[in-house]
């Protein structure tokens, strides 16, 4: 392990890793945020409309079937090299878990609960915001969490086609295999991404604690 601590002790490594971590967080958070907004709308639509449900779900899962390197590359001629193609592609990837869990979360709300809300004269919009979404929230949040984990990992690949983030450190290592120093870079980038994933996970734990009403916890 000595070699690794040496690598980490180097100030230039530290500077590199820190700025790449910041880029990686940006590369994860922005697509997830966009995907939450889009996914909520798509999920609600898919829940409402039996006709649109399977088209929405199959299009969204088709995105996830396209290999990330290919999707990044496809976007480069359109939006140029850099963070933009990565952000667009990662948004498309993050959609599936969010849409799917929004749909299944909404379906998991007890029908008697929705019916009694209707029976008391709540309009469709009110039922959605006051009854259905709050009760679907734990499942939806789980979907956002999965989407985030997915995005953190795939974001590394953006580096292969000129994107920012911790993938750059891994890519540096790959190009030098089996030369000295390559293992350090591979480990440095990978471990940093895993730590980032764990941090995001803890964040979601905290968000769950804060936002899931006590009445529907567990």
């Amino acid at each position, binding site marked *: 392990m000595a070699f690794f601590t040496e690598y980490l002790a180097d100030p230039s490594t530290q500077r590199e890793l820190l700025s790449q971590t910041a880029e990686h967080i940006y590369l994860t958070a922005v697509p997830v945020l966009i995907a939450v907004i889009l996914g909520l709308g798509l999920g609600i639509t898919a829940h409402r409309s039996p006709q649109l449900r399977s088209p929405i779900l199959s299009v969204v899962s088709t995105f996830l079937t*396209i290999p990330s390197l290919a999707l990044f*590359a496809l976007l480069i001629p359109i939006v140029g090299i850099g963070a933009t193609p990565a952000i667009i592609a990662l948004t498309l990837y993050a959609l599936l878990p969010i849409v799917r869990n929004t749909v299944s979360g909404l379906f998991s709300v007890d029908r008697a609960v929705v019916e009694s809300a209707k029976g008391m004269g709540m309009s469709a919009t009110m039922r959605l915001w006051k009854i259905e979404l709050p009760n679907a929230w734990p499942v939806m949040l789980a979907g956002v969490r999965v989407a985030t984990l997915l995005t953190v990992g795939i974001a590394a690949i953006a580096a292969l086609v000129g994107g920012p983030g911790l993938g750059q450190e891994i890519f540096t290592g790959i190009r030098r295999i089996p030369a000295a120093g390559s293992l350090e870079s591979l480990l440095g980038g990978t471990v940093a991404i895993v730590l980032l994933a764990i941090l995001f996970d803890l964040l979601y734990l905290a968000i769950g604690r804060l936002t899931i009403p006590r009445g529907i916890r567990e």
Partner: protein
Amino acid sequence: MSTTLTPPDAQDATRRQQAMDEDAASARRDRRAAVIRYLGMPVFLLLVLLGLYLWVTSQELDSIEARTLTLDSLLGQTQQHITLTLYSTFFVLLLAVPLGILATRPKLRRYAPAIIGLGNAGQAIPSLGLLALLFYIFRTQPALPSTGTFPVVVSLVGYSFLPILRNTMVGLDQVDRFVLEAGRGMGMSNRKVLRSIELPLAVPVVLAGVRTALVLNVGTAALAFLFGGGGLGETIFSGFQLRRTPVLLTGAILVAVLALLVDYIAGLIEEKLTPKGL
């Protein structure tokens, strides 16, 4: 009493009419949906390939582009890509599915949550990093072969192993919970339960595993070029490095089409082989 009435809620008022139309419409929809489901994807992929061909041939390719985009090299890379995908899928299934079945047997049950937890945690490891680390081991251990398909396939298997194991176990676990007790309740022996209930019910779980593994591996095989394993990732990457859009797009589109095609075929197989009524 005053008769000031608000206009009827549009949704509720139109429902009567909708109810009547629904029957005929749903039958029509079903038929159209079936056609789209079976033919939509292949037709779409064909059109994409045709479009790509027409576009590339209409371009004036410079010498670098012309050299990269030969039919030979593209076919060769496609073949490499498919080989990598099939090998890694075969081996990962060979390892992960029996292990998954074993790990869900009553005697080993108590380890199941830990293994599934490990599988979940494995999601946090980036594919690029894991592949590179596995490949690094091959390159630096003199006892192991350092070039060719073998190290790449092992790396791909190493990457897809945990997800497939986890999916198999979760799938079997669900089957078990609902059905086992019913079987026991009818007085079947353990072996009879395994043979006549669990294994048939495990078929869809295994088939789903095949599909997942194929899709996962066809995607990661796009990274194989980084480790000397070839595949269509090579074209994408040279297109990017040489700043040649036709090359970049050709690679990207071929990879995407291949992945979608693999997923489509795996989906068909899954559907056809899944026992009816499950």
